[in-house]
């Protein structure tokens, strides 16, 4: 089965490696990500004010146009997923707002689209046991720390993604690839998000705690589902190093990059040049590239 796919802005720029690896892996796993035509920015945040319908127009437009093409929409970026899934839920539950937005964007979308994350496709459609069988190069010996961040999980009543405090989907995925999962307490803590713009110190501290905790628990690589998180915990590692002298860098990979390695893709197609901390020495050391 093919899936309608909303990439989002970041996956066309800073996180091309996320996008490309996901598309390539899909083909190997027997499905295609069909990019939504004429997509726009998702709005980047779900509005905190309940009457701020303006901010819901971009995701509503995306949902309405996706419904014209199919019934299931998938995304990779955790932030886009959060905004689109919550907007979809609002369309299902709040008839008044739905009508108002529909009138404004001149659509008639009724909330009858299923919004799923790529990880959910891997778990529910492909199946982790089946995925394990199709792995060509198991990540044996690689100690990987799954970092969820917030956006996949919260608010959990709306996202209904996994257990609110102890999610397991990411762990299941990494185990299917043959990696050794590193349990660490900061795996669902906030990365600092947009604070990295206004108060970079706050974001640096968040990232330092997350990465430090992962490393202390034995992680060799941190795995992310979100370009925002990746910016804070990977691209900002030079800032962390300047502020915390004891800090040692650690590679941060998108989960689809690890999937690519495991599916036997050539490492030159995995976009490692976009990762701030080069994972190649580690992967070479483990015999994975």
């Amino acid at each position, binding site marked *: 089965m093919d899936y309608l796919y909303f990439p989002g802005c970041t996956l066309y720029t800073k996180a091309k490696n996320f996008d490309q690896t996901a598309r390539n892996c899909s083909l190997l796993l027997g499905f295609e990500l069909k990019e939504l035509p004429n997509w726009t920015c998702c709005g980047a945040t779900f509005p905190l004010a309940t009457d701020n319908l303006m901010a819901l127009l971009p995701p509503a437009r995306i949902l309405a146009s996706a419904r014209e093409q199919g019934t299931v929409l998938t995304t990779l970026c955790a932030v886009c997923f959060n905004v689109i899934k919550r907007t979809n839920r609002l369309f299902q539950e709040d008839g008044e707002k739905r009508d108002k937005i529909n009138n404004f964007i001149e659509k008639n979308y009724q909330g009858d689209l299923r919004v799923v994350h790529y990880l959910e496709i891997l778990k529910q459609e492909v199946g982790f046991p089946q995925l394990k069988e199709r792995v060509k190069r198991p990540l044996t010996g690689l100690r990987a720390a799954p970092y969820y961040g917030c956006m996949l999980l919260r608010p959990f009543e709306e996202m209904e993604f996994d*257990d*609110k*405090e*102890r999610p397991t989907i990411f762990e299941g995925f990494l185990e299917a690839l043959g990696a050794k999962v590193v349990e660490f*307490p900061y795996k669902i*803590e906030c990365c600092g998000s947009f604070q990295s713009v206004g108060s970079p110190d706050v974001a640096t501290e968040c990232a330092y705690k997350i990465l430090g*905790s992962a490393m*202390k628990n034995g992680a060799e690589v941190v795995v992310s589902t979100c370009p925002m998180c990746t910016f804070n915990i990977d691209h900002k590692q030079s800032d962390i190093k300047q502020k915390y002298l004891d800090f040692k860098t650690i590679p941060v990979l998108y989960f689809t990059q690890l999937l690519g390695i495991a599916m036997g893709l050539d490492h030159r197609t995995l976009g490692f040049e976009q990762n701030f901390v080069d994972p190649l020495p580690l992967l070479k050391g483990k015999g994975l590239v």
Partner: protein
Amino acid sequence: MRKLGVFICHCGVNIAGTVDVKSVAEEMGRVEDVAHSTDYIYMCSEPGQQIIREAIREKGLEGVVVACCSPSMHENTFRKAVKSQGMNPYLCEIANIREQCSWVHQKDREEATRKAAEIILATLEKVRKNESLEPIAMAIDRRVLVIGGGIAGMTAALDLAEGGYGVVLIEREPGLGGHMAQLSRTFPDLDPALPGLVAKASAVERHPKINLLCYSELEDVKGYVGNFDLTVRKKATLVDWEKCNGCGDCIRDCPVEYASPFERGLGMRKAIDLFYPDSVPSKPVIDREHCQYFLDKGCRRCEEICPKKAINFAQKDERIELKAGAIVVATGYELYPMERLGEYGYGQIPDVIDGLAFERMLSPNGPTRGKILRPSDGKVPKEMVFIQCVASRDPDRYMPYCSRVCCMYTAKHASFYKEQVPDGQPYIFYMDIRSDCKGYEEFLQKTIEERGLLYLRGRVSRVFQDDGKVRVLGVDTLTGRMVEVAADMVVLATAIVPSPGVKDLAAKLRATVDRHGFLTEAHIKLYPVESSTKGIYLAGCGQSPKDISDTVSQASATASKIQALLSTDKLLQDPLIAFVDEGICSGCGICVEICPYEAREMDRRRGISVVHEALCQGCGACIAACPNFACELRNSSASQTLRMVDTFVA
């Protein structure tokens, strides 16, 4: 034709300010069968009642309508007044012209006056057809069933037994004491909990009027107030308590150990053991789930060692039939399960414990002999975090109510900790401090000042294990800063919830519970210890979270209410209930299905449905449901009601 009297009350200006009472009284005086019509400023006052009494005497009245306030206020007053003159009280009716007329039509005197007259005329129609009725007298059983052997149940049982009533006390666990037996010392006087409790439990055990059934549960209830038929299941202890002398040899020799629920998992118990070390009765029970004999028949050591040959692996549950006139439900509480608290680690972090577990730790007979030690490694914790309002006062996710005792016991806990570990630092996260009972605020202030407790006003967002510590992430809302504490141990003041199984029990008793599962009282202020079902009374935390003082007060209140109920030989019941015209009833049974009080029953022999007089509450559901118009309500018959309606629509 009956000679009727109409008495119109002014209720000061409440009625007379709106209704022209004089003209209504005159109008009523012109009605053919009204022999006397008058008005007075306060009919319910002694002179007012005297007017009614004199009129009955002098005019020979045979029926009375008092036009005044709601019948729930003074119906009884006036019925008593007419009764004193030899009139049947059910020939006196109230016409409500205050709540249903003057108060709601204050701006329209003319209309209000017309409506008041109509209400009185309609009530006259009712009185014309009213029958003289006598209250229904029922024999009562003067014994009481008390469910629950905690401090509430024991207090109620002892009060009742001291009053001379026979009591059956059933307790689910093998010993008395409930949660109070787990406590170390109690606030605000810091008395040790156990000695007083054990003294009370022993008094219960020894009392000649109390039949104590431990390890027993209520299986079935039939009947009604004054006459409950009960079935109690006495679970097999597998030890003959008659023979057992409590020597404890079996406990010593038992090879199986498992985490004790009484010690909240901090200590171990044997597969044959007492409920807790000082348990009353001091007799052991074999736990089938853990006993080696029941796993593979591989061990009979207790049977071999017992000098009294009291072990009986073949013992079966026993069913006991009992009768009682009233039932006390004192089923107590449980703490909100930590397994459901994700942000506090789902109960999986060994050094995060709940308040009762900490009480066990503080208890001299507890798993650590009163020493505060980390469960994970047995070290003395140097940084302690106490979190209040865990799962309480959180309507979005957990319980919306306040659990009442946490503020005080957390202060007590922190104070004991500081006493034992003077160089340790306790942190207390709180929302606000509620110390509204006798001596509480003083206790709290003294504790904070003397012990130097650090109170942080704010919630904790997450707790997790990291580096051998328990990291607590929270906020101090007074400084507006995030707080992170690397604690050695965390104590959660988790919410009080009703003990498991209360909903099933309430269903058996036909008592109601609220949406959280607490038993509901008949009226929160006027009938706080009665349940909405007659004959069922409440005590303790099964009704709502409360401290020991309030629990004991409520238990005593319940006991005295029951003593009043049982002090008469016969129970009088209002006769305004349903009755069946046996000639019309076809025996279809619809009324049996519809009756919410189980008061309708099929008489198979006669093929008709009958009314159980003691159970019928006169709600009228069966009357509306009857397809043949075969049942009616006494003194509210169809013909009466239709005539009243005619008065209004004419």
